[in-house]
């Protein structure tokens, strides 16, 4: 296996970016900071000249003074490692991009990058403000794709990102790409998730340990996410969402785009629906992703036990699939007494067909459980 290895020049680049944080913030935060990937194509000198002309000399001198030993020490202290674009571990996929990061700082298992090809990874993006529908799909996509051997890449944000990671941790391997140092858990309430990914997967960033997030660092990390995977799937996103920046970046790289369809009335699905209209792959489940990336033929193991359910359960399941989410609504639609529809919902939840939110509303899971329990 290739060892993490980074040359001094590339490492210094990472520390320079961290030092430039507030300066780039000033010039790149016009339209949600989306200029940052372009800026990052520039060389050190050009970048400093554009972002911080007044202190350019100072900054360059400060970074040039950083010695290899000191930087390796800092990486070690933060329990991180680095691999640069000249190293063997650096993913081939990233080399496609003109604005590829010079170095990747990682925390977790470097083995996930070893031999990582674009068709071995799927990036899942989506809104932070997601509906329970979107969260459920993200979780199931993450789980099933990871089970099928794919590396699931996402950004550890609230909503879709977090759910995709959680699903993937359940089924296999996942990479989180952060807009801050890999040892910084951001958002803070995802600390638990961050720790879990560090333990079971990999956290990546082009920023050095301890670097704090800026608005511009998120579009910047999006370009890494887009480049790492052969396909980027958007689960839910409003019309003007950061997730769509990732999709644009992926399209520029010639990667496949996938979108999960949603109700046309739902704001949260406006982004993916628009992408579908302009030709993105329709993603209904993990199988669709595999078909689009690897060609038809790779099958997910998935028996269909719905037919074996008794008629009442089937009617209730159909009602939930039709969009009813409360027990009352299900009872009204199916014509069953409230008590029996409650019992039916409980059984379907136990069988894994449904999930119940903490607010007591039901939604359909993507993949029915394969349990053979005869309830």
């Amino acid at each position, binding site marked *: 296996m290739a060892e993490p290895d980074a040359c001094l020049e590339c490492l210094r680049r990472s520390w320079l970016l961290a030092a430039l944080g507030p300066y780039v913030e000033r010039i790149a935060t016009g339209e949600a900071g989306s200029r940052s990937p372009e800026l990052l194509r520039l060389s050190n000198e050009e970048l400093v000249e554009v972002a911080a002309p007044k202190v350019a000399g100072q900054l360059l001198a400060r970074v040039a003074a950083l010695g290899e030993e000191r930087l390796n020490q800092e990486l070690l202290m933060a329990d991180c490692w680095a691999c640069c674009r000249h190293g063997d571990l650096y993913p081939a996929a990233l080399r496609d991009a003109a604005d590829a990061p010079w170095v990747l700082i990682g925390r977790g298992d470097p083995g996930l990058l070893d031999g990582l090809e674009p068709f071995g990874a799927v990036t899942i993006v989506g809104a*932070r*403000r*997601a*509906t*329970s*529908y979107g969260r459920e799909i993200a979780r199931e996509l993450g789980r099933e794709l990871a089970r099928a051997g794919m590396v699931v890449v996402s950004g550890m944000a*609230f*909503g879709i990102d977090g759910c995709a990671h959680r699903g993937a941790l359940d089924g296999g391997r996942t990479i989180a790409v952060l807009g801050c140092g890999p040892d910084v858990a951001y958002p803070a*309430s995802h600390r638990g998730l961050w720790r879990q990914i560090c333990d079971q997967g990999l956290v990546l960033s082009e920023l050095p340990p301890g670097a704090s997030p800026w608005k511009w660092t998120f579009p910047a990390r999006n370009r890494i996410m887009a480049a790492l995977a052969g396909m980027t799937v958007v689960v839910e996103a409003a019309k003007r969402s950061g997730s769509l920046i990732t999709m644009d970046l992926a399209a520029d790289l010639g990667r496949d785009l996938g979108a999960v369809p949603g109700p046309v*009335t*739902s*704001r*949260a699905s406006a982004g993916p629906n628009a992408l579908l209209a302009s030709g993105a792959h329709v993603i209904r489940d993990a199988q669709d992703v595999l078909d689009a990336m690897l060609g038809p033929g790779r099958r997910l193991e998935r028996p269909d036990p719905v037919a074996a359910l008794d008629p009442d359960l089937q009617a209730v399941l159909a009602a939930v699939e039709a969009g009813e*989410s*409360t*027990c*009352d*609504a299900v*009872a*009204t639609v199916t014509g069953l*007494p*409230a*008590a*029996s*529809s*409650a*019992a*039916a*919902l*409980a*059984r379907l*939840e*136990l069988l894994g067909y449904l999930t*119940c*939110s*903490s*607010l*007591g*509303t039901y939604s359909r899971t993507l993949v029915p459980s394969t349990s053979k*329990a005869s*309830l």
Partner: protein
Amino acid sequence: MPVVLATARTFTLDGIFARPVRVEVDVHRGLPNFTIVGLPDAAVREARERVRAALVNCGFEFPLRRIVVNLAPASLRKAGPGMDLAIAAALLSASEQLRWEGLADAALVGELALDGATRPVYGALAMAEAARQGGAKAIVLPAENGAEAALVEGIEVVPVEGLGQLLGLAEGEWKPPRPEPLPLLPSVAADAPDLADLRGQPHLRHALEVAAAGGHSLLMIGPPGAGKSLAASRLPSILPPLAPAEALEVARIASACGRLGAGLPGGRPFRAPHHTISAAGLVGGGQPIRAGEITIAHRGVLFLDELCEFRRDALEALRAPLESGEVAIARVSGQRSLPCRFMLVAAANPCPCGRGEADPDCTCSPYEVQRYQGKLSGALADRIDVLAAVRQPSAADIGGAPGEASAAVRERVCAARERQEHRLGAGRCNGEMTPAEARGCPLSEGGAALLAELYSRQRLSGRAHDRALRLAQTLTDLAGLGEIGEEQMAQALQMRRRDHG
């Protein structure tokens, strides 16, 4: 002039309890002065002016001497104007204007007006009970409090309308008849809201019925205007009537809080405090201690509308009382335990704007929603047994026929409660079962299998396991069955609150 000492018995209210106080009056030669000692609060200290005026206006003479009134025990804080009558009587006795041998065996309570008329006091019921326990033969109290005190057997109740009537009493020439005790009010007032107003919403109705039948706490989540508050306010109408002993408990608390109406409450109290309430207002507190909303809701329903808007410390304070059925309030002066066995009913919107995440018009940010729902799954949620997701009723429901009336539902609830009392003992219900009792519930094979399946699959906590059993037992009682069947267990699992998102 010799030193004269006279005493009288009275009570001060401490929370909902009456504490005996002995009034000692010392009239002594010296500069005219009137002092009250023995930890009086402002209202007690002002008794000086009321008593002076009342005495003079009733034609008595106010002794121009050095008067010291001591309220014993001196370590107990005395509050309220209820000791006026006793102070006046002792003062009259000390100045030898009132020669009443019965004074030693009587307790006196009542506030005095400046013209000597008596005014009603809070907590007369508790005081009459305390007087009987303390061995007093009679309790003299304002006429307005007579009916309430007459509920207590074994003590003479003497209602008076003014200070002047004490003279008649002392000379034995006048004695009022024992007042009629307060009548028992019907358990459901004629104009009480009826569950028939709740149209459609079969699941919510079922949840209400189950919660009422087993005394389970209930949380309703749904958009504004879906009928959550309406449903909660109908709950007392389907709860079983108070047993006589319970009615007396409720009346004692109501009397101490000045809330006792024209009769002994037959129905259960329903309290719906506003969400701005403080922790002390909710569970009781202050100095002197006052009963909080949960004590006023004793044996009834406490409804917390907009649960997530309540202050966190107020909700936190509810935890222990919910579990133990009484609230312990510690003060420097000692600890008081107030009863508070109530049924918790709460309502909340799905998100701060109320529309719910599925609604495209929901304007809440993910942080807001997370914080809001964090409150729902916080400390108090652990004490919630039944979760009901409420949806906006359809036009057909609203325009449709009225739902089943309260009386019919109540009949089923009462039948289920009877079975529970038969099994658990008087006054107890499934919601209060101990873990041992819950695990002792007869369980059919199918029901046990379902529960075991859930337990292993979702890694339920022990508490959630017992909660599911309690709920299933209530459903079984409602169905009139001998053991928890598969159907009941499945329903219980559906109705239970989820521990995780």
